[in-house]
């Protein structure tokens, strides 16, 4: 029950922006990623990436396709190793995948042979959490993502948005130190995507997790982020880091505000510059 108690106590705190005095949760230190090319040469996907994300911060990485933003997330998850440099989460060097770095993937990765409930408790079972406690945690997150009535359904019976909601619940149920999200709403239709952004904001406002969220959707980036990391390509690098000083709770109406539009302009210009430099 320990996990649930902290969840509720965080609920009661107020939601001002404490990041500046929070400890660094993710540190990416001079990371490069290279692949051998078939012609014998080398392809540099990421070059000298340095970034820090503070505890409870919502960081969004936005960039043109092929800039290596997903690769950076996979490196953080430990699903791939950097050619150079080091990544650490909560002071511990990343050497492989682990439950303290939860991930929500772009494609649907629910286990189709498990029900919604069994999917969400998958990580808890690996950690050998007792059944009664598992049930409490699963019930809590089922409620958080609004799927209380779908606990016993199989993934094939769910819509795309519902599947990603389960994937979010599954990652959070493990109580990771950091939540990595790789274009999780990229495959959804635009209406569902807006709903999911709201849902994610609400969950994050409840329970401040450190999140690193990758997207190519500028609106999505600004709506969700405390800070936007704008990447450029060939090779992938961080172009600019923008603060989004818009207080929570945020809603979709934000997209009409001058602050939002100014930030959007800035990100668009950065991405356009990147395109022009390549061509």
């Amino acid at each position, binding site marked *: 029950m320990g996990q649930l108690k902290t969840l509720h106590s965080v609920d009661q705190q107020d939601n001002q922006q404490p990041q500046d005095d929070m400890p660094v949760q993710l540190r990416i230190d001079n990371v490069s990623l290279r692949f051998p090319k078939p012609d014998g040469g080398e392809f540099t996907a990421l070059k000298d990436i340095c970034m820090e994300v503070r505890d409870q911060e919502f960081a969004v990485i936005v960039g043109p396709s092929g800039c290596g933003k997903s690769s950076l997330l996979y490196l953080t998850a430990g699903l791939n190793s950097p050619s150079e440099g080091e990544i650490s989460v909560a002071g511990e060097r990343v050497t492989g995948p682990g439950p303290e770095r939860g991930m929500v*993937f772009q494609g649907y990765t629910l286990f189709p042979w498990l029900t919604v409930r069994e999917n969400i408790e*998958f990580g808890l079972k690996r950690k050998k959490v007792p059944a009664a406690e598992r049930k409490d945690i699963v019930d809590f997150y089922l409620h958080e993502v609004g799927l209380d009535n779908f606990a016993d359904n199989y993934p094939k019976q769910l819509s795309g948005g519902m599947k990603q909601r389960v994937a979010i619940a599954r990652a959070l149920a493990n109580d990771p130190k950091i939540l990595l999200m790789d274009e999780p709403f990229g495959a959804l239709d635009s209406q569902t995507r807006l709903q999911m952004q709201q849902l994610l904001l609400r969950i994050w406002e409840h329970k401040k997790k450190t999140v690193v969220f990758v997207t190519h959707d500028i609106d999505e980036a600004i709506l969700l982020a405390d800070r936007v990391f704008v990447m450029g390509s060939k090779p992938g690098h961080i172009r600019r880091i923008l603060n989004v000083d818009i207080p929570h709770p945020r809603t979709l109406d934000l997209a009409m505000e001058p602050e939002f539009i100014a930030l959007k302009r800035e990100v668009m210009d950065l991405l356009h510059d990147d395109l022009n430099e390549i061509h």
Partner: protein
Amino acid sequence: MSNSVIKNCMTPREELPRQLVLSTGVIAWLVLILAWVLLAASDIVPDMFLPSPVQVFEAGVRLAENGTLMTHIWSSFKVVIIGFVISSAVAVPVGLLMGSFRIVQAFLEPLVNFIRYLPVTSFVPLFILWIGIGIEQRVTVIIFGVFFQQLVMISDVSRGVSKDLMQAAYTLGSSRRDVVMHVIAPASLPGVLDTLRVTIGWAWTYLVVAELVAASSGLGYISLKAMRGFQVDVIFLAIVIIGILGLITDQFFRILRARLSAWAS
């Protein structure tokens, strides 16, 4: 029959009413049996070569009454099941490992791909010399015929498991062992059951091969004996019974798959 149903019959991949599907299947059987009856009644094929369905049925009753039919059916069934279970019990885990671990694949694949193209029939004389003509010999023929095919098919099934699912499992705290046991194995289950369903059909084929050469009981054995005595009705009976037994084992795996992996369909 309304126009829309006719149109659906002509449209690729279009579903049809269940009753129409069932009755069409029944009609196919009726056509076959009718053709058989007509051919047997006519003078095109002499009676001694083609018995009528009634004669085959009578042969069945005759052999069932003195108990020999059940003995032979049981003898054949036993061989198929023992051979198939032994083969599957090894092929399923080894196939999963072969599909999961590149090193196991590298070790086994060249060997297995050689052996599985060797004609099983050519090994029968060798098996008779080595093992004799008891039930062990027939079981060996079935294992030899089925095992290597199962291994390759199951290894392909488990290699087809989405890497995304495995990566998701790792980020949820799975060990490598967990990924094999809790991702690759359950994800492969529908494909494994499909493989078993296909290969049990082959097991029936190899059974007859084994029994025709060396056996003192079984459906293949009674066909061979019937040939010597020119009892074409008994040969037909053996063929029909093997067909029915094959159909039963096939349906068994079809139902098992529907039960165990409803999530996949």
